[in-house]
């Protein structure tokens, strides 16, 4: 198998006396959809924050595309090819949907220290922006302010912005959060279409989606990855059943 | 010894700054409100004390009147105006409290006129005392330092031994939680604010005999108070104490000795005086910049 695009070794993080990540060993391979599941409070969001750089680990290392990114800043990681969507939509509410996407495109294209030309008249930005709007199905709402569109559309915009940089690794934090069944299916469809183009690290509670989409699954319990493997292996793993599936939900 | 005298002066300034900043840092840290009008309560304390002292001839009656006045004024402002600003962004708070400054400054000018008032040092504390062989120091200023120590001890006991203090400390780290535990947040906030303004008023009263009591007197000490809070760490009373002492010492010692130091270094006496005086007045801010360069959140930041 090729080298992992993202790997962590002995990644640890504690807040005061509370140990949230306790030596996490994770590996994500190019082109795969890798799901991260675990009971609430297992440390999933903290782990994502460590991976994307919003938190610095107390110990351990992170390697992304062959580079040690353990102490790299958030923007530097993004420029290296990591993109993220948030569990609670993190957009620019007073910008229009189009402007949100344009900014995401702008961020990975040339210098933003340009004081004169307008990005909305620049084909290098508007072209890809339009494509992205179509891809996530927000073409109709392009002129609405991002803070005024519905929750489902905001989730779509989140994804759209993450895709703008054509990332090598896409980190999705509960993309289906708060979506109704139809929207969730549409979101799952969208994610599935991305498969193969990029590696995707997906945190999700919706078990149907997880087992349908993921190539491999890692289970995080109390700050440790207790199992990694394909869907069926995980389902049949006793430790996982006991720690998670047995108490939470049945499959 | 000149140095000892200046150190004591520095401590005395530090005490005043501590009184101003202790309450304010709590307001910043717990209620997350930028209150530019804090200096106004310092001024109210001074004015009330001066007026009562002039009428009755007693400094201590003035003090007794000023403290409740400052506390009540503070609580009134909190209930009428500040309360509505807790959820607003800082810009709104800056502007509204700015408006309060205008109002209070102008009100004092309307009531008391533009001429500064003067307060006499109380008989009891007049004169100097010999603290070391050959070194005299004004009793009044020593009294201020003593008051500062007492207030620090009082606050320490308040925070560590009483329920109210515990609630305040809890509120500093987790606002929502104490509400959930049934503490009356509104009342708590009003009391905290009142405590802060009471201390500011106390500082104003004590400053009365030393400085002139006039409209706008609060602003000059307010900026130094901000510097203390930034250095000490927002929300930390301990930081306010350490910061206040440091700022008091740095400012006093710099003003006292920098001009002389420059005279030693430079030939031209007038140039030395100029540079020395200029740098002395800037010393506190340079100190602040240094602290911030090393610790952007201050010396004792309160983590939420």
């Amino acid at each position: 198998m090729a080298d992992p695009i993202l790997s962590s070794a002995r990644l640890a993080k504690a807040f005061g006396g509370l140990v949230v990540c306790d030596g996490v060993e994770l590996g994500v391979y190019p082109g795969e959809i890798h799901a991260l599941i675990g009971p609430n409070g297992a440390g999933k969001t903290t782990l994502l924050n460590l991976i994307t750089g919003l938190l610095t680990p107390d110990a351990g290392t992170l390697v992304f595309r062959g580079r040690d990114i353990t102490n790299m800043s958030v923007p530097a990681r993004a420029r290296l090819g990591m993109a993220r969507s948030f569990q609670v939509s993190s957009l620019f509410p007073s910008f229009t949907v189009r402007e949100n996407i344009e900014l995401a495109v702008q961020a990975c294209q040339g210098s933003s220290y340009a004081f004169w030309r307008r990005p909305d008249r620049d084909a290098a930005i508007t072209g890809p922006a339009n494509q992205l709007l179509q891809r996530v199905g927000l073409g109709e709402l392009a002129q609405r302010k991002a803070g005024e569109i519905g929750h489902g559309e905001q989730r779509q915009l989140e994804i759209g912005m993450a895709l703008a940089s054509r990332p090598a690794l896409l980190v999705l934090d509960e993309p289906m959060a708060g979506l109704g069944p139809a929207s969730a299916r549409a979101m799952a469809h969208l994610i599935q279409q991305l498969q193969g183009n990029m590696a995707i690290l997906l945190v999700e509670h919706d078990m149907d989606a997880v087992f349908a989409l993921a190539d491999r699954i890692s289970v995080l319990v109390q700050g440790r990855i207790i199992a990694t493997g394909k869907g069926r292996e995980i389902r049949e793993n006793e430790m996982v059943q006991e720690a998670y599936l047995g108490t939470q939900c049945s499959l | 010894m000149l140095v000892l005298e200046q150190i004591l002066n520095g401590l005395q300034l530090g005490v005043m700054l501590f009184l101003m900043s202790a309450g304010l840092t709590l307001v910043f840290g717990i209620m997350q409100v930028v209150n530019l009008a804090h200096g106004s309560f310092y001024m109210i304390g001074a004015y009330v004390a001066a007026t009562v002292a002039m009428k009755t001839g007693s400094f201590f009656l003035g003090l007794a009147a000023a403290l409740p006045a400052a506390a009540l004024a503070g609580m009134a402002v909190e209930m009428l105006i500040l309360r509505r600003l807790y959820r607003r962004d800082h810009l709104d708070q800056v502007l509204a409290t700015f408006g309060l400054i205008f109002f209070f400054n102008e009100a004092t000018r309307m009531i008391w006129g533009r001429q500064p008032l003067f307060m006499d040092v109380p008989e009891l504390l007049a004169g100097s005392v010999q603290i070391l062989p050959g070194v005299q120091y004004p009793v009044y200023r020593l009294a201020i330092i003593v008051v500062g120590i007492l207030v620090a001890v009082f606050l320490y006991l308040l925070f560590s031994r009483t329920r109210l203090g515990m609630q305040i400390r809890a509120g500093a780290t987790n606002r929502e939680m104490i509400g959930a535990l049934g503490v009356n947040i509104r009342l708590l906030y009003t009391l905290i604010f009142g405590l802060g303004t009471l201390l500011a008023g106390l500082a104003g009263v004590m400053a009365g005999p030393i400085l002139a009591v006039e409209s706008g007197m609060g602003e000059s000490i307010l900026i130094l108070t901000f510097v203390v809070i930034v250095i000490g760490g927002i929300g930390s009373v301990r930081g306010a104490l350490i910061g206040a002492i440091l700022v008091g010492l740095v400012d006093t010692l710099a003003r006292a000795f920098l001009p002389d130091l420059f005279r030693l270094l430079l030939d031209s006496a007038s140039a030395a005086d100029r540079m020395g005086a200029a740098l002395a007045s800037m010393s506190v801010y340079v100190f602040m910049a240094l602290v911030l360069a090393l610790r952007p959140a201050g010396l004792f930041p309160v983590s939420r």
Partner: protein
Amino acid sequence: MKAFVSMRPRLLLSVAGVCLLVVLPRLLELTGQEYLLSLATRALIYSLAAASLNLILGYGGMVSLGHAAFMGIGAYTVAILAHHSYESTPVLAFLPFLQGTEQALIVWPLAMLLSALFALLTGLIALRTRGMHFIMITLAFAQMLFFLFTSLDTYGGSDGMSLYGRNTLPGIDLGNDTLLYYFCLTVLVLFLFFMQRLVRSRFGRVLEASRENEIRVQVLGLAPFGFKLTSYCLAGAAAGLAGALLANQGEFVSPGMLHWTRSGEIMVMVILGGMARLTGPVIGAFVLLFLEEYLAMFTEHWMILLGPFLIVVVLFARGGIHSLLFDRLPGGRRAQHNG
């Protein structure tokens, strides 16, 4: 096409405003109120200062309470260089070739440069903080300069210093009040035009985005710090120019120009006029200065009204006068504030 149509009412109003300002001196002459020309010129200069604050405050979200410091640096640059020019002494004893000068083409760029430098140095420290810290630190740095200038007795100390004349500009006699007015108007319009391009450029978008959601900007791959610092320096330079113009207009400088209450007044101008809109600060500056002038005629205690008025505006009317005028018109992006 839709954007142009929706923009038109606001554009028309702005053009009308400029026209009004162009004919104002004539109007004042006709109504026998020439004495108001100097007030109007000051209003133009403060409009420039307020507009520069609007860049970092309205668009960038940085609540800086030290903006008057930049004006002070610009003003004192003019004054110090003029003083040494008049006295024929070098500015710094150990640099004899650094003579004073009254030539605007040297002094004003220098004023802007020095203000920008101060912005850079203080910004490097202050912009690593935010919220309450940032407000208080900008305040402190401005006060530091206030004390510095107060202690410089050679240049007037706390009483300030008069200038013997205005700076010289080839071809334009700035000593003529009407010409100075039009010059300041030109500078203001040019700056507003520059600002308009700036806020709609790539840079401007990142600046506004950083105000709304800094983490998101970082996750997209951009570091907000550099954008904030750059805009802080630009605003500082513009305010420095305003300060230089102010020193020329009144032919007087004093440390009071740097007092934090001045910074507060400039901020009030921005708010009164509505933020994140280009012409708001101009409206705010004119309203505040003319209000001060007229209210002072009624009572010397007019300030007691300003305080509660400000409080009421803050508590109830967001967006300021500008939004009262322009909000009903479509188009434009409104500055959002988090609760």
